[in-house]
C-alpha cells in the first residue's frame, strides 16, 4: 500500500526540517524510556547509586538478568503464565472457530446478540464482573487455581477473538465452498481442505492476540491468585517493585525486559499487517 497523500509540491523551504524535528521529538518521547530501561538493566547497584551516574552503563554486564531470574522467582512465574496463556489460547481458538464460522455464514438472531455482547464487554468495568466471578469460582474451588484464571481469561478474550475471526471467515468466498460441495466433497471435507487452509493466517493472528493478552493481564490475576507459587509474571513483577525494586533497580529493569520479550517478538512479527490490512478492516467493520 503506497501512501496516498499526494506529494506536496509547493513545499515551503522550512517544512521538511520541521517535520524531521517533530519526528525526532516523537522518537525521543517513545524510545527514551526503552533505552533507559535497557541501560539500567546492565548497570550494577553501585553504578546506579553513584552521584555521577552516566546514562550508558560502564560495561555490558548481564549479571542483573541472572540475579533477577533467581531472586524474583521469574522462572516459576513465567511457567505459570505460560501454562495459563497457552491453555486459554487453545480453548479460545477451539471454541471461537466454529462460532465465528456460524456468525459469518448464517443469518440468525445470534449474530446480532453476539455483536451487542462484544460491544458491551468493552464498556463494562471489570469490577462489576470480578466480584460475582470471584464468588462463583470460590464456590467451585477455583480461586487460587490457575484453571480459575483460565476460565476468566477465556470468557473475556472470546468476544474479541470472535470478532477478529468472523472477519477472516467472511473474507473466504462462499463460492469456494459451493464449488467444493458440487465436486462432491462432504461438508467436513470442504471445511477441512478449503476453509481451514485459507483461515490459517487469521487463526494464527487471533490465537497470538489471545496469548499475549492473557500473558500481560494483571487485574484478574491480582484478585484470583493469592498463593505466591501460583503467581503469574505481571503479579510477581508488581510485588518485586514494592519489596526489592527500590533497592535493586537494575534487577527490576532486567526482569521487566525479560517479561516483555514474548509480546514484543509477536508485535514486531505482525507489525506490517497491523499497519495495513487488519486495522483498516477492523475499524470500518
Amino acid at each position, binding site marked *: *500500500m503506497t*501512501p*496516498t497523500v499526494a506529494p506536496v*509540491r509547493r513545499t515551503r523551504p522550512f517544512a521538511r526540517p520541521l*517535520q524531521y524535528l517533530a*519526528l525526532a521529538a*516523537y*522518537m525521543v518521547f*517513545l*524510545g527514551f*524510556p*526503552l533505552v533507559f530501561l535497557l541501560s*539500567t538493566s546492565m548497570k550494577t547497584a553501585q553504578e546506579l*547509586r553513584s552521584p555521577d551516574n552516566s546514562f550508558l552503563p560502564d560495561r555490558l554486564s548481564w549479571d542483573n538478568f541472572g540475579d533477577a531470574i533467581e531472586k524474583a522467582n521469574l522462572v516459576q512465574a513465567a511457567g505459570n503464565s505460560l501454562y495459563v496463556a497457552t491453555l486459554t489460547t487453545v480453548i479460545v481458538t477451539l*471454541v*471461537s472457530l*466454529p*462460532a465465528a464460522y456460524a456468525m459469518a455464514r*448464517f*443469518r*440468525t438472531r445470534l449474530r446480532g446478540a453476539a455483536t451487542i455482547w462484544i460491544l458491551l464487554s*468493552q*464498556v463494562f*468495568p*471489570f*469490577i*462489576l*464482573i470480578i*466480584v*460475582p466471578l470471584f*464468588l462463583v469460582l*470460590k464456590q467451585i474451588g477455583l480461586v487460587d487455581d490457575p484453571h480459575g484464571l483460565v476460565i476468566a481469561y*477465556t*470468557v*473475556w478474550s472470546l468476544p474479541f477473538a470472535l470478532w477478529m475471526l468472523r*472477519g477472516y471467515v*467472511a*473474507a473466504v468466498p462462499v463460492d469456494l465452498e*459451493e464449488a467444493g*460441495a458440487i465436486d462432491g466433497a462432504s461438508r467436513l471435507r470442504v471445511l477441512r481442505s478449503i476453509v481451514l487452509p485459507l483461515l490459517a493466517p487469521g487463526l494464527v493472528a487471533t490465537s497470538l492476540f489471545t496469548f499475549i493478552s492473557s500473558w*500481560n493481564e*494483571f*487485574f484478574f490475576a491480582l*484478585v484470583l491468585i493469592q498463593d505466591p507459587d501460583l503467581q503469574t509474571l*505481571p503479579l510477581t*513483577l*508488581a510485588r518485586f*517493585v514494592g519489596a526489592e525494586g527500590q533497592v535493586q*533497580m537494575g534487577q527490576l529493569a532486567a526482569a521487566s525486559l525479560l517479561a*516483555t520479550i514474548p*509480546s514484543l517478538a*509477536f*508485535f514486531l512479527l505482525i*507489525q506490517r499487517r497491523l*499497519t*495495513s490490512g487488519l*486495522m*483498516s*478492516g477492523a*475499524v470500518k467493520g
Partner: protein
Amino acid sequence: MTTATSRPVRPRRPPRGVGGFGGNGGRDAWLLVLPALIPVVLFSVYPLVQGILLGFTDAQAGLNQPVDFNGVDNYTRLLDHDLFWKSFRIGLIWAFSVTILQFLASLGLALLLNLNLRLRWLARTLALVPWAMPPVIIAIMWKLMLNPSYGPINELMRTLGLPGDINWLGDFSTALPAVIVVGIWAGMPQTTITLLAGLQNVRGELHEAAAIDGAGTWQRFWHVTLPALRPVIVAITSLDLIWNFNSFALVYVLTAGGPGGQTMLPMLFAYNEAFRYGNFGYAAALGNVMVVVIAAFLVLYLRGQARSRDS
C-alpha cells in the same frame, strides 16, 4: 485481502440440498455457537447480571453471609462519601486528559508517519512497542524514570538548571499530571496506528484536486483530511475514553492511588472497597455508577458528532 475484509460481505446461503447445508441453518448455527455460548453465559453474562444486582445489596466478603437487597442505600451512601466524589473527579480528569492529549499527539505522529520521511520505519516500530508491553512493566519502567533521586527525568532537570529533586509520583501537585503522561505514552500506539490506517484510506485525488484549486497545506488538512478521517476519530476516541476510564493496572503499580488519594481512579477505589474492606455490594454499586457515567458521556459525544455531521 484488504478489500475483502473492509467490504461488508453479505453471507449467502448456499443453494438448498448442496453439501447438506439445507434449510436447517438455524440449528446448525446453534450447534456451532454452543461451545462458545456456554462458558460466556456461565462465567460472564451470569456474573455481569449478578454484579449489577449486587450493587443493590449489602453483600460483604465471606461465604454464607446473609445478603439482603437494600434498594438505593448504596447510592445514597455513595453521594455522602467524599472519597467517591474525589475519585470520580480524578477519574474524569484522567480519562479526558489522557484521551484528548493522546489523540492530539497520535494525530501528529500519524500525519508524520504518513509522509515520505527517512527513518519512518524506525518511528513506526517505536510507536508500536508500548503496545507490546504489559501495563505492569510500563508502570515499572516509568517508576524508574521518575525516581526522585536516581531517575533520568530529574537528572535532566538538574542539567538544565531546574529544581531536580521533584518527587513526581509522591507529590500532591505532580502525581496526577505524571500518571497522565504515562497514560498517554502507554496508549499512543493503538490510537496512532488506527489513525494512520485511516489516513491511508484518504484518497490522494482529493488532495490533488484541492491543491489545484489553490488550497494550502493547512486548508487541505482541515477540509479534506479531517472530514475523511472523522469516523475513525470518533471510533478510536470513544474506545480510548472507555478504556482509560476503566483502566487499573498502570496506576495501581505506579502509585496505588496515592499520594493521599490524588490518583485514586474509580477502578482503584472500587477494588479497595471490594477486596480490602470486603464491601462487595458497595463496590458493585460503584461499578454500576461507572457504567452509567461512561455511557452518559458516550451518548452525548456520539450524538453531538452525529448532529454536526448532519448539519
